[in-house]
């Protein structure tokens, strides 16, 4: 269990894992040594809806920062996700093939997308949001959306 920042906007509760960094789309990175796991934030999965299919670049693929590395197809939208890191995909979460709903159920845990061998984490990190900055961003976005209703 990871520590979370949490906010409730309207009827939705959003959680942000404080051990991760985030790109502005809502893809998280959790770094361990020279590797990182990537996944969808709680906010992104809630906003996107139930996931029907997910595709991730196969193991061995090289990722560039901000380049599309995964596509999710939900009941509402199809989204290309941009990589928050530069590196090589070393492992794709096998659970996604038969149970992509695990992303909705546990976005920061069992619903991770892939594991990447990092190439230049120092540079990547400087271009990402930390948990607090991402939390503030999604809070504003969620509150703005509620005002539109």
């Amino acid at each position, binding site marked *: 269990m990871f520590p979370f920042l949490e906010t409730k906007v309207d009827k939705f509760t959003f959680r942000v894992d404080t051990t991760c960094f985030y790109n502005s789309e809502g893809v998280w990175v959790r770094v361990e040594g020279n590797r990182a796991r990537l996944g969808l934030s709680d906010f992104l999965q809630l906003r996107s809806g*139930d996931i*029907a*299919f997910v595709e991730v670049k196969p193991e061995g693929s090289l990722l560039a920062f901000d380049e599309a590395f995964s596509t999710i*197809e939900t*009941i509402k939208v199809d989204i290309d996700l941009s990589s928050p890191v530069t590196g090589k995909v070393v492992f794709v979460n096998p659970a996604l093939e038969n149970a992509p709903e695990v992303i*909705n159920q546990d976005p920061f845990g069992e619903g991770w997308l892939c594991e990447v061998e990092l190439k230049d984490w120092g540079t990547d990190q400087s271009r990402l949001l930390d948990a607090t900055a991402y939390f503030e961003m999604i809070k504003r976005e969620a509150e703005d959306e509620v005002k539109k209703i």
Partner: protein
Amino acid sequence: MSKSPRKVVIVPCSGIGKSYGTVSRVAAYQVTEEDRPDQTQLIPLALLVMGDEESRKIVAESQAITIDGCKLACARKMVQQSGGQIAREFAVLEVFRRYRDFKPQGITELNEGGEKLADALAKEVDVVVDELSASKEGDSHA
């Protein structure tokens, strides 16, 4: 006097404004009005929510197939609350995962993908209706 066999009850999602809810209802109409009209009966979810006595009684005394458009699973929950026995529950998302080419879009009117998905879903429901009808027939002959 022979007692007429009770029909299989079909309870679809009543979600408005969502393609998946529409797919569930189109499939339910196809089963109950075109494919298996003699073996099935559609019960609108709204009647169960309102507590309509007759609908609740039918559901409580029948085998039900629920078709839910989203994970809130209102159809399943209302049938359970009405004391019904769920013979099979369908979720449109699960069916879509089996027919990826049939991506539903549109709300009041489904796109071609949505119509095909509803048709595929209806055919899966038809199979379950046939199984339930056959087993009831077997029971009555036992």
